[in-house]
């Protein structure tokens, strides 16, 4: 009931929406990359790009919400250094969720296949067509994504550890259902 013990409904919705989008876009990217050229591949690449733009916009919205709404404090039982680590991890996650779509956009420009969001809104090309740059950006996009995978893994592992091992309220602050914290 106490509003300070849980994230706002908006923050919770945006967080889980981001999770859903990331867990769709990442495997889609890996899968489509392996396909030989076909209409399906072209469609999936477009969907991947649209999802990436959506994640970028969602992250901007989340940051805007986050800076105007103080999140509920972590349980006092958590050591200070872990609280700081959690905060740092969150910052890194936000940074990657902005930078990764940007590298995808840059890479699309460099490869000469511009992004047209939802097939409707064409994003401007940030760089000219340049094959070498396109390949480099693809490597960076890939590396950053595996960095994201590792960080998301830590994020989930930490949440589960607090929930199932320490039995504290860390995860419950972000769960979409459930009562507040006693």
């Amino acid at each position, binding site marked *: 009931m106490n509003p300070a013990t849980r994230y706002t409904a908006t923050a919770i919705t945006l967080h889980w929406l981001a999770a859903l989008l990331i867990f769709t876009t990442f495997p889609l990217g890996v899968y489509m990359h392996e396909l030989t*050229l076909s*209409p399906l591949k*072209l*469609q999936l690449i477009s969907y991947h790009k649209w999802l990436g733009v959506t994640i970028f916009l969602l992250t901007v919205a989340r940051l805007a919400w986050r800076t105007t709404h103080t999140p509920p404090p972590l349980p006092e039982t958590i050591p200070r250094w872990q609280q700081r680590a959690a905060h740092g991890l969150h910052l890194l996650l936000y940074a990657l969720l902005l930078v990764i779509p940007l590298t995808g956009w840059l890479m699309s420009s460099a490869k*000469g*296949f*511009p992004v047209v969001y939802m*097939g409707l809104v064409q994003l401007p090309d940030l760089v000219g*067509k340049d094959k070498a740059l396109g390949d480099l950006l693809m490597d960076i996009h890939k590396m950053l994504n595996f960095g994201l995978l590792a960080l998301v893994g830590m994020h989930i592992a930490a949440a589960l550890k607090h929930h199932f091992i320490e039995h504290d309220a860390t995860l419950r602050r972000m769960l979409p259902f459930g009562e507040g914290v006693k």
Partner: protein
Amino acid sequence: MKKSQFFSLLLLASAICGAQAAEFNQVQTGKSTLAFAYKQMGVPLEGKFGKFAVQIAFDPAKINAAQARLEVDLASIDTGSSEGNDEVAGKLWFNTKAYPAAQFVSGGVKALGGNRYEALGKLTIKGRSLDVSAPFTFKQEGAVGVFDGAFTLKRLDYAIGEGIWADVGTVANEVRIVFHIVTNAAPSAKK
């Protein structure tokens, strides 16, 4: 006085030259381009053909005698990616092994007023011949004549992109062909 006389003489001379029948038939292949534009998943993309041969005989004063022939080496296509180039050479697209070239043969040229014209003719790709009309402009600068034009074809009319690729929701049916052809006037034999 002398200067202005000189200039009016020059003007007169150029007017005579301009009025003189000049046939543009020396195609500058290196300065000419043949490009295309299409949409893929709503994304506007461009490509070009690296090798093509053009024969033109065009005299703005004798439009009825104008002729053009174009032969395009389809394997010289640049779609923007090597993966794409390999794909469109294949059977479902141009099938360049069986049909290495596309041809356009003009049947006539219509004057549309000003420097605007329209070339009518037959375009043959992959064994299919269809009538096309290509509006173009002709700009003359001295002995150089430049043709700029474009027309839109439907790729499925020529069975370009069959089978799984026939879905025009992914690769659009409409392909815009854009040509820029630079010619020189024939060295005038008759004085």
